[in-house]
């Protein structure tokens, strides 16, 4: 019933999933992103976290760190929530839904990282949280400007050549996604990678990468 | 021995999936994109299972010479 007006960016549309007026679509591109997110969410669900080994510098001694299992459970929960938010974001056919899912990715990312009792990691998580919160300004702002200038949020409408989306809205959207997920500037996230729970920490990167890839598609197509 | 057997089974099955997908796609029985997805899924399994099969020990291992 729907046909994507633009097929030369992410391939043609495969099928559409409707929940009332919330419409998600799977093109070749978004379906691939969806599959990637699904794989890593499944990994976060099934795999047990690693035990981190530390070496004592200046000697041969090494020891594994003790980690509170309750924190790991919380981290797993957050990672799964993050995966679900990513799944929503990569197939959403609506700019505002997309921004909502992206900011949910931001929240869960903070949650994943915050479950670690280390001053440096918590500090990094705090700074990251501030940036993620600030990023909602351009993110929602971008969506709002799109709505105000074009009168629609549906990607089918926005992808047509007749609808011109102002450049500032596009820039805002990209800035917002960059702030929420830090992709591709993970250098700001280097400290975060110290936290334990590889399958869950991985989810932080996967989600931010995938939403970044999605916003690139949206912005180029618009 | 049992692990060697199961690794061989997995390798054979995934290998057959890869080859069959390619052949069927070439004849035209299978959509090309479906064959591609099948191969992408089966090929990594095939590589690892094959390696697991030929690196698995054959039953009783040698007792290494441990000196006098």
């Amino acid at each position, binding site marked *: 019933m729907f046909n994507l007006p633009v097929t*030369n*960016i*992410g*391939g043609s549309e495969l099928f559409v999933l409707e929940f009332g007026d919330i419409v998600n679509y799977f093109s*070749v*591109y978004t379906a*691939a*992103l969806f599959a*990637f997110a699904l*794989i*890593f969410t499944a*990994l976060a669900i099934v*795999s*047990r*976290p*690693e*035990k*981190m080994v*530390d070496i004592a510098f200046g000697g041969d001694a*090494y020891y*594994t760190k003790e980690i509170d299992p309750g924190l790991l459970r919380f981290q797993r929960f957050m990672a799964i929530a993050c995966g679900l938010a990513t799944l929503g974001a990569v197939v959403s056919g609506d700019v505002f839904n997309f921004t909502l899912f992206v900011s949910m990715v931001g929240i869960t990312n903070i949650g994943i990282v915050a479950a670690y009792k280390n001053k440096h990691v918590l500090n990094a998580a705090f700074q990251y949280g501030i940036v993620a919160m600030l990023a909602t300004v351009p993110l929602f702002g971008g969506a709002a400007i799109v709505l105000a200038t074009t009168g629609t949020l549906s990607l089918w409408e926005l992808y047509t050549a007749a609808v011109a989306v102002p450049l500032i809205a596009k820039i805002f959207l990209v800035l917002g996604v960059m702030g929420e997920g830090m*992709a*591709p500037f*993970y*250098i700001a*996230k*280097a400290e975060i*990678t*110290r936290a334990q729970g*590889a*399958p869950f*920490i*991985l989810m932080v*990167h996967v989600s931010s990468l995938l939403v*970044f*890839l999605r916003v*690139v*598609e949206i912005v*180029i197509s618009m | 021995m049992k692990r060697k057997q199961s690794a061989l089974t997995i390798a054979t099955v995934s290998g057959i999936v890869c*080859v069959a*997908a*390619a052949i069927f*796609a070439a004849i035209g029985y299978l959509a*090309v*994109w479906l*064959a*591609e997805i099948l*191969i*992408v*899924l089966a*090929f*990594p*399994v095939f*590589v*690892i299972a*094959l*390696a*697991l099969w*030929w*690196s698995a020990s054959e039953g009783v291992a040698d007792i290494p010479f441990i000196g006098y």
Partner: protein
Amino acid sequence: MIEYLIFALFIGLLFHGIHRKVIARVQGRPGPPIWQEILHTLKFSFKETWIPKTASQTLFVAVVLVAIGIWSAALFILLSGGSILLLFGIYLLHKIVEHGLGLSSGSPYGKFGAIRSVISAASELPLFATVGLIYFFTHSLMLSDIIAYQQVHGPLLIAAFPAAIAMYLVILSKLHYSPFAIIEAKEIVSGNMTEHFGIWRAGLEVGYAIKTYVLLYAFVLIFIGQLPLLAALLLMLLILVSLSFICAVSPMLSPYDTVTVQSLVTGAIAVYIIVLGVILA
């Protein structure tokens, strides 16, 4: 289809061998035979293997499967003329594989590798700039459209020269022994691959071989156009040898210098895009 995948795998491994040979000859060493990497992979696959006790077992194994899977998928995208944005996505996913390799084992060396991989994320920026610049010219990101464009307008190598440099840099930063290969530097043992030995390393070599083939082939397709297979292979070999020369004569950069260089190149391309946009608009 599968035959092409296996062909790509062996050519990729052969390319890795040639890469080592060229580096050795430039540095005045005899070097290993060019099929060394094929033997290497086979040797690893025959070795006894286990999973470290501290590792996150599922992730430890799954990451290897993902590494092979994504690059096989990338090869098929190239063959079917799919979207280069998807190729870009797979390249970014490769980054996740690098994180996963390093973090899943719990080894401190692996973790250092993973953190360095986070830092060197700037290596994706040049690729992003490449995608942007190509879209600027062709108004399509489908590989088939890009090839068609080049048949009409001549190779993009000339029109979009900065993008070619950026992609060249991208391929360079993922090669072994490259000045940007900080994630597998020897001062952190083998970086993120430290704990992946035996079969897992063989699997990784398979994935990386396909990766090298895909990246070189993508370069040829995007910037020069569709060529007969033999000509394309020859061109890929030429590009590889030029990359090997760079690897042979340049020392490994420090992590922060890596980021600086990659960011500068991206900035230069961004300026190029803006200038073009202003002139044409």
